[in-house]
């Protein structure tokens, strides 16, 4: 009897490992998508066509604020995983709520920056540089948006079903996705913003 139960447990764990690995492979292919956008940006970022160049456009402290908000949200997402390991449902929900709030703040900052650029007349239609900038940073913003939707669904599921095997697995995948978005942002911050104002 206990052997059967053990067998089932083993099977479930193996399924979890496979799902995690599959999601990891997806994340790696997403990195390739971002790499192609980075390459486009690297090729086009001097083609300003008479429009503003990167060092006239970007504000470093603003980009730093975005970076710190996203980094902190990545940390609180990790805390949610830790709380889940201790089966502390309320702490998981609290950590996810903070993560989602920080994610929303980040998205708001990014959209505010986009709006300012567009109102100044520096939209994606202005130059090759701005087209590649909006595509690269906008794609990251879209990922953040889908991550936030996922997080809202996750919070609702945990509230209704509690920390079951299924919700725990998806919670781990969501945290991987969120950490990955932070990793991509490091390179956006470095290549687009820091090196852009040099």
């Amino acid at each position, binding site marked *: 009897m206990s052997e059967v139960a053990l067998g089932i447990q083993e099977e479930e764990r193996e399924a979890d490992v496979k799902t995690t*690995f599959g999601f990891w492979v997806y994340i790696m292919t997403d*990195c390739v998508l971002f790499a192609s956008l980075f390459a486009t940006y690297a090729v086009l970022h001097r083609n300003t066509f008479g429009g503003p160049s990167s060092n006239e456009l970007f504000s*470093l402290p603003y980009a730093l604020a975005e970076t710190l908000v996203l980094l902190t949200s990545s940390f609180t997402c990790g805390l949610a995983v830790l709380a889940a390991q201790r089966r502390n449902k309320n702490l998981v929900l609290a950590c996810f709520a903070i993560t989602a709030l920080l994610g929303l703040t980040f998205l708001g900052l990014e959209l505010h920056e986009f709006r300012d650029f567009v109102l100044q007349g520096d939209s994606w239609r202005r130059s090759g540089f701005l087209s590649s900038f909006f595509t690269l940073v906008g794609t990251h913003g879209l990922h953040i948006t889908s991550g936030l939707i996922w997080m809202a669904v996750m919070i609702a599921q945990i509230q209704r079903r509690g920390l079951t095997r299924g919700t725990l697995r998806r919670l781990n995948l969501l945290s991987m996705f969120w950490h990955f978005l932070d*990793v991509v942002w*490091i390179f956006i911050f470095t*290549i687009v913003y820091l090196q852009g104002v040099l």
Partner: protein
Amino acid sequence: MAKMQTPVHAQHETDHATLGLYISGFLLSLLFTLTAFGLVEEHVHSGHTVFSHQFLIGATVVLALAQFFAQIYFFLHLGRETKPRWKLLVLFFMVLVVLIVVIGSIWIMYNLNYRMTPDQINQYMINQNGGI
């Protein structure tokens, strides 16, 4: 029963994470981010005189890579995977593809830019699009 075990069994989930790991990852990331920001900000405020361009580009890339490895290790728990390290293998493959795509694109476009005169580029665009 033991004979049926596949290599996947040896791979445990990332359920051994500790608070210490996340805190170290967070502090290291913070340190790398603020250092990079400080260097560039100092350079811009001093009227682009403190450091050379090459140094700053190199330094910011090194700091970004350091933060990349810190987050991969402390947040995504790579490197604490038991054998066989499939995740690490896929990561290496991704890095290979990324390097080919990025370096290849920059190289080809730089080369085209270098070899074609503005007239040739205009002629090419007229042929392709029927106008500039």
